[in-house]
């Protein structure tokens, strides 16, 4: 029975105005630092040192670009490609395998299921600070430095993403569809790839964005593991711009930071339609 939603009681005007005010306030709050960052990218070091926060753009954008290009270690295109390889690789691995693992936890009943889920949760709770020390020491010992694989493959095991996918799947994955596909004679793996994955799209898009952003902005592990100039990621290159504190070219640094974040915006806008649009999951009626 289709209900005519236009007859729905709308909220009153004053309440709507308040809502708009609150939303606009938060929008400004969220955008402010980005504006400052962009403005600073057009100023030179002296201006930034005198007044770090300003809304008045200046004319040094091209100068800063020149400084960036003159730096021996700043090659934005290569850095961009390196970051792209690592982040896309990590995101694809994490999203796909986390969904697969979550599916294993939700769709099937098996003896060690509870224990495995507890392991995933326990893994999620470990403070990453100290384990990363052991991780990079291990990588140095097996001579896997300057290699992208140690930065991509470990994300196959992403406990918090598995947790999210499981929590999302439990109420929204209708096992009846899986059953009917089995009756039709589909392989389990095909069922997963052709039926379950399309249904998980909003969740995968959401987690995909988060994973990509986190991986892109990551500095500590890549910095320790990638010492070859050719392999530097964008964040590493930008951190190199901050040399000794007395010689930092702040304007150029802000420009570098802006260039680093730009691709993230692109990815975000590409995937954001999954967040805005209502891709509801109610596939099975009745």
């Amino acid at each position: 029975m289709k209900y005519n939603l236009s007859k729905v009681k709308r909220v009153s005007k004053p309440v709507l105005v308040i809502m708009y005010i609150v939303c606009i306030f938060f929008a400004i709050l969220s955008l402010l630092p980005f504006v400052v960052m962009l403005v600073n990218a057009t100023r030179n070091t002296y201006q930034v040192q005198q007044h770090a926060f300003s809304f008045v753009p200046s004319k040094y954008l091209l100068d800063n670009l020149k400084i960036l290009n003159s730096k021996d270690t700043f090659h934005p295109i290569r850095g961009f490609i390196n970051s792209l390889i690592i982040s896309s690789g990590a995101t694809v691995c994490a999203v796909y395998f986390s969904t697969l693992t979550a599916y294993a936890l939700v769709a099937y009943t098996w003896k060690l299921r509870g224990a495995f889920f507890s392991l995933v949760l326990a893994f999620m709770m470990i403070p990453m600070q100290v384990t990363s020390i052991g991780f990079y020491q291990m990588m140095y010992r097996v001579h896997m430095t300057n290699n992208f694989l140690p930065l991509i493959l470990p994300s196959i095991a992403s406990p918090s993403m598995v947790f999210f996918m499981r929590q999302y799947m439990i109420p929204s994955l209708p096992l009846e569809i899986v059953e009917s596909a089995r009756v039709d004679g589909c392989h389990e793996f095909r069922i997963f790839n052709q039926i379950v994955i399309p249904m998980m799209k909003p969740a995968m898009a959401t987690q995909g964005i988060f994973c990509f952003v986190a991986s892109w902005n990551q500095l500590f592990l890549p910095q320790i593991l990638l010492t070859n100039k050719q392999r530097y990621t964008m964040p590493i290159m930008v951190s190199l711009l901050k040399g000794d504190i007395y010689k930092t070219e702040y304007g150029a640094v802000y420009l570098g930071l802006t260039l680093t974040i730009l691709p993230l915006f692109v990815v975000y806008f590409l995937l954001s339609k999954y967040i805005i649009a209502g891709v509801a999951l109610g596939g099975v009626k009745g």
Partner: protein
Amino acid sequence: MEKRKTFSYARYGYLFSIPFIVAFMLFWLYPILYTAIIGFTDLKGIGTTKFHFLSEPFKNFKTVLTSASFKTALRNTVVIWIINFIPQIVFALLFTAWFTSPRCKIRGQGFFKIVFYMPNIMTAATVAVLFQALFAYPTSPMNDILTKFGIIASPFNFEVSKTSAKLIVAFIQFWMWYGYTMIILISGVLGINPEIFEAAEIDGCTSAQTFFRITIPCLRTILLYTTITAMIGGLNMYDIPRLYLNGGPDNATLTTNVYIYNQAFAGSYMYNRAAAASLIMLIIIAVCSVAIFQMYKEKDPTKVDRKRRHLAAKKEVTE
């Protein structure tokens, strides 16, 4: 249910979990075990690979638990997290309600959703630097605005006052994560069968009733995820406290992970103490997680259905 059918497919459960387990064992087992063992040894300093198990196995743990800095760190972590999380979940739920309810046609919803998440994209290092500039003393935009409008007589040193430092760090965390939380909740709401909402409309529920009696219970699984990850993230708070004032002033923003980092990297490379502190934090986090799981389990799904049916029945009676 179809127990017979799923049972024979059980092996796929094992099969599909294999990639995770293999990756885990390859990359993380060694570091985790290494950390766990080191907590019981005297390993410190760079370049030392030989270590000896302490005659008093819990010595490191005792040192950590009795140190004033650790106790302060634990207290700070909890305080800052609470100040950050409560507004965060309130506003996230508020915006989720506004942006998914058919009653509030807020134009530009898509724009707001996109913008609210943006703070999460910025690197922590950049955020810390910008906020340092915003609240510097004696000259900074914040101080300039406050003195110009006469709110305070002379510039306030935000970085020396312990209260303001804590509040600023909590605010930064809120600012960076409220959009993220909102998006997670919205994606959860998008997974709820819209027919349930239609039924609620038919029953004449107000938006508040719809939200609290239907949306939130249906979001239970996602809310559990949000609470647990927020708690874990909160107890592991590291990048902003370290980058903003490095745990200062006077340990006011020292969180447990910054404490652990200091043990390992402040100069003495006391990996053993850092590992011991990590193990202690792991236990604390595990206990809190169990508590949260229990809290959510109490809301039995059958009880929720009963509530809904009860509500529907009440409406029928009054009509």
